């Protein structure tokens, strides 16, 4: 690929170059212009005149030094594999490629674009959009093989920018709606984040279209953008691999990433469960889903919630049990955005398993809750004790109540342990109990335990293993 006919240098080195106000020849788009946009559109092969550059309105050389101008950039592409779903990815490359040009600065995207051309580059002869069009066409064709035909239009005539603006906005909105509906099954790459590994060395955040990062800050699209810019950075691509179990969210690529990044501590994860081999929790999670054994349901509490929750414990106490990059059944760090996902804890029953949450979370996710459950999940203003919770759920006929019947049926299969008498004694520090003989042994760790039980029931969980 040659840029010999372009009067300025083209290259990655110019990425990050900023054109300061006093060094600029013109500004295109930017905060001073109300209407500006850049748009990629997938077309049919017949609709495109390959490598054509069109300029509608004044060209760079017709503009006044130091002036601010409206701008619309339209990139039309065609090819056998080009589909509308790729428009966003193609459009984002405009940012990258424009920044490759010496003396051109490109910021933002869509209806926010902000471009500056330096006096220096203008004086070197970069005085027409024709040059920019050529650069874009060559870079697009060489870097994205699927583009077979491409044409580029620059619009600087304010009337035409205004005319095309609404159409552009509608296209962005349609694309966003599609993005929101993007499912984990539709992509072949997830993203991993190890920004929190300094707090939790065995934690790997798996970011999928339908499972936002635990901190609530990083979407799958953020992951994609970051991994592209800095593939060796803390945000990296995880090839999804084989789908082991779609409902549970088990993927061979995710398991492999866990094994590598946690150095073998965590080897298997079901992305959509809080109980069985759950996703690990860092220390930064926005909220916790915590088991309330008395009702066999999950409560949710977020970081900003002050005071005790329905089980008498505040966020901070439960955060200690949840954090650290371990897989702790029933204590699960998650983001509020994940609660808006159709995959939200689907293995455990999803919303039908949620029995308590703070008012402020409820407000934020209300429209994403299934309609029939909305009024059956109490908040702190309705219920603040386990006893009240039980009667509330029963009275509202919360789906979790059905599970209780199953439990009670199992009671005859249980061993009763008589209650201990006397006051309970807080046990500071950590206490580990090993129980052998139950399916290969399990480890129970008590941290700063204060346990008071009127009754402890140990139940056989496997069927058909009864001793004769």
């Amino acid at each position, binding site marked *: 690929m040659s840029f010999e006919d372009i009067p300025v240098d083209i290259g990655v080195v110019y990425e*990050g*170059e900023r054109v300061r*106000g006093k060094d600029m020849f013109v500004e295109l788009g930017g905060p001073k212009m109300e209407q500006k946009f850049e748009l990629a559109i997938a077309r049919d092969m017949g609709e495109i005149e390959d490598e054509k550059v069109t300029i509608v309105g004044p060209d760079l050389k017709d503009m006044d030094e130091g002036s601010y101008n409206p701008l619309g950039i339209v990139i039309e592409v065609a090819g056998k594999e080009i589909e509308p779903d790729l428009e966003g990815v193609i459009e984002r490359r405009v940012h990258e490629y424009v920044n490759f040009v010496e003396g051109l600065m490109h910021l933002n995207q869509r209806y926010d674009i902000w471009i500056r051309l330096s006096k220096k580059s203008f004086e070197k002869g970069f005085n027409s959009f024709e040059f920019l069009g050529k650069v874009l066409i060559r870079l697009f064709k060489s870097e994205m093989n699927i583009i077979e035909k491409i044409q580029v239009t620059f619009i600087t005539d304010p009337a035409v920018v205004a005319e095309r603006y609404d159409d552009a906005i509608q296209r*962005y909105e349609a694309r966003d*709606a599609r993005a929101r509906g993007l499912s984990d099954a539709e992509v072949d790459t997830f993203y991993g984040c190890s920004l929190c590994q300094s707090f939790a060395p065995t934690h790997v955040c798996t970011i999928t279209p339908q499972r936002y990062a635990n901190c609530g*800050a*990083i979407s799958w699209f953020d992951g994609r953008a970051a991994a592209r810019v800095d593939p060796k950075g803390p945000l990296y691509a995880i090839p999804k691999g084989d789908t082991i179990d779609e409902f549970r969210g088990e993927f061979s690529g995710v398991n492999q990433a866990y094994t590598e990044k946690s150095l073998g501590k965590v080897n298997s994860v079901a992305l959509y469960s809080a109980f069985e081999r759950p996703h690990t929790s860092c220390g930064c999670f926005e909220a916790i889903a915590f088991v309330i054994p008395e009702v066999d349901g999950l409560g949710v509490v977020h970081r900003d919630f002050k005071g005790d929750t329905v089980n008498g414990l505040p966020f901070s106490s439960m955060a200690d049990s949840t954090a650290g990059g371990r897989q702790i059944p029933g204590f699960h760090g998650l983001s*509020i955005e994940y609660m808006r996902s159709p995959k939200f804890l689907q293995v455990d029953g999803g919303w039908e398993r949620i029995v308590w949450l703070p008012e402020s979370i409820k407000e934020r996710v209300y429209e994403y809750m299934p309609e029939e459950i909305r009024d059956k999940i109490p908040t702190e203003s309705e219920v603040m004790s386990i006893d009240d919770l039980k009667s509330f759920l029963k009275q509202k006929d919360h789906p979790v109540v059905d599970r209780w019947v199953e439990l009670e049926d199992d009671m005859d299969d249980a061993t009763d342990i008589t209650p201990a008498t006397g006051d309970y004694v807080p046990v500071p520090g950590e206490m580990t109990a090993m129980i052998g003989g139950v399916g290969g042994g399990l480890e129970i760790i008590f941290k700063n335990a204060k346990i008071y039980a009127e009754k402890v029931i140990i139940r056989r969980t496997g069927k058909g293993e009864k001793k004769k």
Partner: protein
Amino acid sequence: MRERLVVSVAGKGGVGKTTTSALLTRAVIEMTKRSLLVVDADPVMNLPRALGVEIPSSIGDIATRLRKSIDEGSLGGEVAKQDVLEGEIFEALVEGEKFDFLAMGRTEGEGCYCYVNRLLTQILDTLSKNYELTLLDMSAGLEHLSRRTNRNVDILVIVMDPSRAAFEAALRIRDLAKEVHINFKKIVIIGNRFPPDMEEELRARLEEENLPLFGMIPNDDELAKTNYLGQPLTELTSESPAVKAVEEIAEKLGLLSEATMLKLLGTNP
């Protein structure tokens, strides 16, 4: 390749970090044509007034806003946050005739800022590469060191006033910088408002700690008045003793001449 230098001004609260930063800025813009980015990294944000700069919004405001729109789920589905932030930060940049200015401010709320902070660091690193000189006025706390927000700093200037606490703070800053592996090419001390006859005593004491005293800013009536009236320190006359002292310090630090790195490293060209 064009040479780039990042200078960070630190020290205990109230020792005169902002005054020092403002006077260093004045020296650079009055005596050189170097492109300069001044960053107020102190959440108290005194530097804008000391330099006579109006700030539209701080980086903290932008980060808080971003965090809020994350909480509300109101961001465009397909748009990546790093791209949004990059533009907003450039918008918060005050582009002046002689220098550009950015205020860090502070973030609010309790959400996790790991990711947002990382984006900020990347964006600011990129921005600062566009200037020959970046001058950071740090906060009194040591958080910025442990958060490594100034990891690419070449010269760390620690300001001290005549107090035991300022001396101890200087040592702590130096030790912490070592602990978190920030490789400053040089750490220097500037004494502010010391009685003139204390200079030798101070120099000797600092030498025991392997810290070079790079200059003294004297008490200055004109400076005090300008400060009190809330007028920009860049308007001080070149007769002001403090201005003169800081110009000398700036020269010694290599901010006023080319080939600073060679000087810093002590190698002969």
